[in-house]
């Protein structure tokens, strides 16, 4: 009797193992979801371009969990995390497979005494190791040298353009090659605050123009005082994040816009600002870079993507992360979507409240503000082929680029950009007809038209003889017959 019970338990255990083991094995393979959009705006599944490699928590380094970290900066072999809730900055060393702790920065030397942070929101490190820390609740940005001595403090601008009724709460800061400090603040909607290398406020850049239409005006005239107060949301954009690219251009993101402004490119959630502060982001895709181009209302999430951070890589590909569905979108320098991946969840590679995105080389790092974790994502072979193809094209090696695109097509025959890439390479080799076929497969009208124009020219040049012959036959032959007849008649009359 007893042995029977043991037997039963054993069988149950075996069955349970059978049920569980394949699930575990599959999880790593199929649970990650990567997609692109085709020319009609339909979602198309794609192989994984990035795959999560590891996720670390604060306790992994023996310093206690992070507490609502808000900002991150990655450069070289270091990652700096602004551990907001714990009032400290954590510096990590990036190994090939793992991360290790370098130091915890929670005090710095200020005029002889020790000073501390209060809810630091962001950190930036210059090439020579100087730290710029947005010490948000202390209402300042502190500049420390690499031995943590205070160099200078940036405080609330005394300029009259700054609305003094709001506290100065710096949330993001970057420093460009010239030493200018660009700061984003909470409740600041006039653009990016710019400080001189000496720490003087010099003005705003990148403020978007407020457009005021006739209809708005009429509505405001008709509205009551209370309604008008509600309507005052027609304000310039408040940027929520900032990043520098390799050429020193500033990428900013915003999530303050109307849903219906996205697709006709009025909202511009990602902007690339030049030194004048105007948006120079290239948008040659079917839709502007706005994250998801179809958004439903399911699983408790609704509405469009709210991009909250952007990171431009050295090869001009830039990635943006979406707070709504926790997805990462990769765009090439032309603003065409390369792939989108990630999602809302607890598994590896999924996020619940992503707050910051940064990169080292081609690896992406995502900081999750509510799971208090840092996730590293690495390129797969498929992603590498895409990046290589783009890089080869930028360098002008169109044939190599086409080879890479062919490799991509072998892995994903739905990948539209690959057809465009191969078509372009064929166009360079004067193989117009084949280029036309590739362009037509994915309905690239502009490129097709270009190839067609060249092919048509070539075709007419080849067949010009027949045209001339045809014309001759049509005009000359009847005339000759007429003349011959005339001559005949004249001869016979004589």
């Amino acid at each position, binding site marked *: 009797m007893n042995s029977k019970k043991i037997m039963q338990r054993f069988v149950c255990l075996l069955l349970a193992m059978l049920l569980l083991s394949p699930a575990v094995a599959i999880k790593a393979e199929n649970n990650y979801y990567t997609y692109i959009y085709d020319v009609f705006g339909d979602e198309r599944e794609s192989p994984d371009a990035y795959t999560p490699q590891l996720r670390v928590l604060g306790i992994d380094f023996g310093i206690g969990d992070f507490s609502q970290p808000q900002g991150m900066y990655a450069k070289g072999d270091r990652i700096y995390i602004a551990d907001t809730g714990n009032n400290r900055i954590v510096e990590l060393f990036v190994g090939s497979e793992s991360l290790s702790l370098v130091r915890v920065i929670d005090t710095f030397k200020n005029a002889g005494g020790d000073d501390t942070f209060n809810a630091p929101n962001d950190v930036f490190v210059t090439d020579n190791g100087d730290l710029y820390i947005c010490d948000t609740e202390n209402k300042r940005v502190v500049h420390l040298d690499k031995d943590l001595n205070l160099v200078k403090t940036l405080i609330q601008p005394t300029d009259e353009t700054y609305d003094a009724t709001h506290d100065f709460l710096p949330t993001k800061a970057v420093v460009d090659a010239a030493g200018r400090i660009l700061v984003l603040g909470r409740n600041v909607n006039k653009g990016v605050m710019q400080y001189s290398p000496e720490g003087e406020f010099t003005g705003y850049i990148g403020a978007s123009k407020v457009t005021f239409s006739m209809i708005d005006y009429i509505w405001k005239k008709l509205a009551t005082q209370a309604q008008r107060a509600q309507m005052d949301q027609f304000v310039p954009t408040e940027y929520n994040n900032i990043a520098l690219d390799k050429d020193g251009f500033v990428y900013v993101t915003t999530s303050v816009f109307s849903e219906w402004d996205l697709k006709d490119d009025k909202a511009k959630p990602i902007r690339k600002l030049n030194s004048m502060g105007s948006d120079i982001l290239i948008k040659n895709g079917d839709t502007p870079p706005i994250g998801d181009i179809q958004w439903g209302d399911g699983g408790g999430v609704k509405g469009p993507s709210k991009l909250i951070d952007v990171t431009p890589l050295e090869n001009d590909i830039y990635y943006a992360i979406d707070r709504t569905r926790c997805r990462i979108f990769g765009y090439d320098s032309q603003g065409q979507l390369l792939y989108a991946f990630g999602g809302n969840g607890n598994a590896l590679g999924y996020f619940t409240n992503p707050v910051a995105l940064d990169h080292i080389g081609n690896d992406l790092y995502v900081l999750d503000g509510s799971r208090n974790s840092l996730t590293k994502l690495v390129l797969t072979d498929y992603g590498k082929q895409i990046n290589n193809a783009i890089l080869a094209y930028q360098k002008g090696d169109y044939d190599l680029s086409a080879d890479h695109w062919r490799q991509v097509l072998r892995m994903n025959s739905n990948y539209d950009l690959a057809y465009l890439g191969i078509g372009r390479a064929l166009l360079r080799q004067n193989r117009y007809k084949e280029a036309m076929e590739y362009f037509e497969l994915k309905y690239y009208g502009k490129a097709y*038209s*270009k190839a067609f124009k060249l092919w*048509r020219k070539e075709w007419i040049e080849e067949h010009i003889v027949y045209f001339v012959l045809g014309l001759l036959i049509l005009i000359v032959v009847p005339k000759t017959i007429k003349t011959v007849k005339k001559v005949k008649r004249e001869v016979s009359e004589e």
Partner: protein
Amino acid sequence: MKIAEKINKDSLKEYKRSLRFSLHVIGHPFDGFWDLIHEKRGSMAAANTIMIAVLLIRIWRMQMTNFMFILYRPQNFNVLMCCLEILVPIVIGCISNWCLTTLFDGKGTLKSIYMAVCYAYTPYVLLQLPMIFISNVVTAEEGVFWTYMDRFTDIWIAILILSAMMMIHDYTLGKAIFAAIATAIGMLIIIFILLLFFSLISDGFAYFISLYKEIAFRFY
């Protein structure tokens, strides 16, 4: 036998003549439509021929025009829907127009309205067929020509239909435009009633089906 042949020959001649008359109508809409209805210069056979040609050209146009100008999803293409998209508005429009104009002392019959509308679609046949070919030999920049021709076809047809309304019902221009707007509203009402009717009918059927099921369950 001989008489039958003669009649056949005559009717064929008549058919050809009425079909050729469409070319006169599109150039001289006022005289043309007047003669078409009141002088019996048109025929239903010719009108139907034009309509069938329009449907065929619409199908070809959707499929064979270069993708730079008309981009459609091949997997969603449906010949029947393609035809109905033209036929249904025309049929409902004719009915709606006839219903309204009989109330507002229009002279036209349902037959004459349909015939006139079919004749008014002649430019579509004449212009869109070569346009399919043209779309395949022009580049995107030259495609402006294609777009303008497309608009031009629509405007021409609209003018023809409006003048047809004036001639058939013996209306002034203002009254014809008013009738056109009223027809559009009438079409919406007809579609609404049709939907209501279909949903009621299906509810009615559902009632009898469930009744049958109840009885069937009781006895088996």
